[in-house]
């Protein structure tokens, strides 16, 4: 009797061990993929590092024509960072404002509104691109770009160039619209994590709603809000399709962002535009893979920072106060 039980237990352990092993392998899959991905990108882009060295990152010349090959990705790196930064500058204040509104509105209004903003997140990038290219660009060109250009065009370099709607600022505005759902919903969660007693403390002192946010909510959630914004930055950096369709797709030195109204190029858009044409035999393909590697490393750094900040904030929510 006892022996039988023992055998049973052993079987138990064996099938559970297999189960645990399978789960562990599936869990570790993500780590393996990340490692393999970085290894692949490094090894496949190796020829370009060999040929251009550091020049690949600081060079501005981009020429895929055989015999005159030269690849410098600086304009695209700059294009990515500038459009992402502009998108942040426009999108983050909007997002935090929206988060404030929704976290404070009565459930009857806040619920559906939050849902609508979140629905923005469900719209695919390609549709933002289509809408941006065929609708938004035309209005933006007539109502914003041309007046600004006429006003400042000759005196301030930022507004020089021909406003055509396929340029840095249009791409940045579309990016801003695209990061709003992410940044505002994470910000809202973070503001919700501020204990109600903190708000009450501010109201008790006679604060208005806005003063309450300044006294109780913002200081408490600062870290998390920065994290949410950086998460938005990560999204903006990696975004491909909408940007590709709206940024004007310049190459080489002319893609270097110097005015709002100039066509440019980002790391992801140069890949989307040229990857299929690039011959594996030439340096063109390794160059594009090299761009992907740089893009990935930037994205990883941004997202690691963002996640550390957001999770730290979410952990703080329970314990920090009242010991």
């Amino acid at each position, binding site marked *: 009797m006892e022996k039988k039980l023992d055998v049973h237990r052993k079987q*138990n352990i064996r*099938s*559970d061990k297999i*189960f*645990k092993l399978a*789960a*562990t*392998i*599936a*869990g570790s*899959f*993500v*780590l393996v*993929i*990340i490692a*393999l*991905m970085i290894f*692949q*990108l490094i090894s*496949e882009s190796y020829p370009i590092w060999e040929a251009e060295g550091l020049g690949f990152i600081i060079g501005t010349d981009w020429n895929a024509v055989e015999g005159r090959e030269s690849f410098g990705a600086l304009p695209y790196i700059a294009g990515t960072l500038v459009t992402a930064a502009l998108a942040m500058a426009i999108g983050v204040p*909007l*997002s935090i*404002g*929206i988060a404030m*509104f929704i976290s404070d509105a009565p459930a009857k209004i806040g619920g559906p*509104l939050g849902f*609508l903003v*979140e*629905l923005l*997140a*469900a719209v*695919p*990038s*390609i*549709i933002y691109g*289509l*809408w941006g290219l*065929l*609708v938004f660009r035309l209005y933006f060109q007539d109502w914003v770009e041309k007046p600004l250009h006429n006003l400042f065009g000759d005196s301030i370099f930022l507004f020089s160039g021909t406003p055509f709607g396929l340029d840095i600022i249009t791409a940045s505005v579309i990016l801003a619209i695209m990061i*709003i*759902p*992410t940044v505002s*919903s994470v910000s809202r969660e973070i503001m919700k994590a501020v204990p109600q007693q903190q708000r009450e403390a501010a109201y008790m002192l006679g604060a*208005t*709603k*806005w003063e309450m946010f300044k006294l109780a909510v913002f200081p408490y959630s600062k870290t998390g809000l920065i994290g949410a914004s950086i998460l938005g930055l*990560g*999204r903006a950096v*990696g975004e*491909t*399709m909408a940007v590709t*369709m709206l940024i004007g797709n310049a190459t080489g030195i002319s893609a270097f962002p110097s005015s709002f109204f100039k066509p440019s190029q980002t790391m992801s858009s140069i*890949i*989307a535009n040229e990857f299929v044409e690039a011959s594996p035999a030439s340096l063109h393909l390794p160059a594009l*893979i090299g761009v992907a590697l740089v*893009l990935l490393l930037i*994205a990883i750094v941004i*997202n690691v920072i*963002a*996640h550390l900040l957001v999770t730290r904030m979410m952990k703080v929510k329970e314990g920090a106060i009242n010991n």
Partner: protein
Amino acid sequence: MTTTNEKRQEYRALFKNNVKKRLLVDKIVHIIIFAFVIIAIIPLGSILVEVFKNGITAISYEFLTATPGSIGSGEGGIGPAIQGTLIIIGLASLIGVPIGVMSGIFLSEYGDNRLARNVRFFNDVFMEFPSIVLGIFAFLVIVLILGHFSVWAGAFALALIMFPIVARTTEESLKMVPVTYREAGTALGLKKWVITFRIVISAAKGGMITGILLAVSRIGGETAPLIMTILGSSQFFSSMDVPMDALPLRIWRLSLLPYESSQLQGWGAALVLIFVIIGINLAVRYYFGNGNGMIRKLIKQGGLVKK
């Protein structure tokens, strides 16, 4: 006592009579914030209106089923693109869902160690990887080795986007199942894997389906990783080893053509895509609700945002 009533009156006299001003500032801030909300809603409204308004004129039985006509003719349809999108979603789910579910089980049931904490963290970071880089990875490990474009490469790239979302939603759903369920299983002498599959997962089904559907709606709109894996085609599916079409790719191609009729077809394809994606989102919200906070968590983890 240090402060007397007189002293207190003195202090009160120092208070500025600023309440009106402060309430005005408050009002202004409130208006600005409200304007922000409106500004955010306008693009959504405009997108939905434009897609519907322009797209509906393109939709016909022929448009939904035929192969694309000659460029600029305005004839033909998006049949291969719809078929391709369905095929690629199916194949990606075939790869992504089992890995995601097992990974979610690992995080939930064996998730209290250093490996799991790392997996959880990198899973979240991996979700934010630019999708075009995932496409390049699929290109390098499949297309380059096979020597030709492959439907499998596209499915693999999309599966990479899918599995971390499924993993995290599975984890969250399983964690919501009360420990007593597992204890009841243990008390019956059931094996852990039996408990997990028969008891825990059946209790957590709703949340898991939510996660899978939202992951599907996310990959359905993905474009970038398909460029270098399935390329796009104007023919119906014939083999895994030749280029295949997909809705997002077709929209991209059509939108860049300088013909109004092509752009109209682009809107038509966009309407089909958005109908499916928003439809899935609305259905998921309707059936599984916001009550369990799954949607929020997903958004927080990036599951809903297209690249």
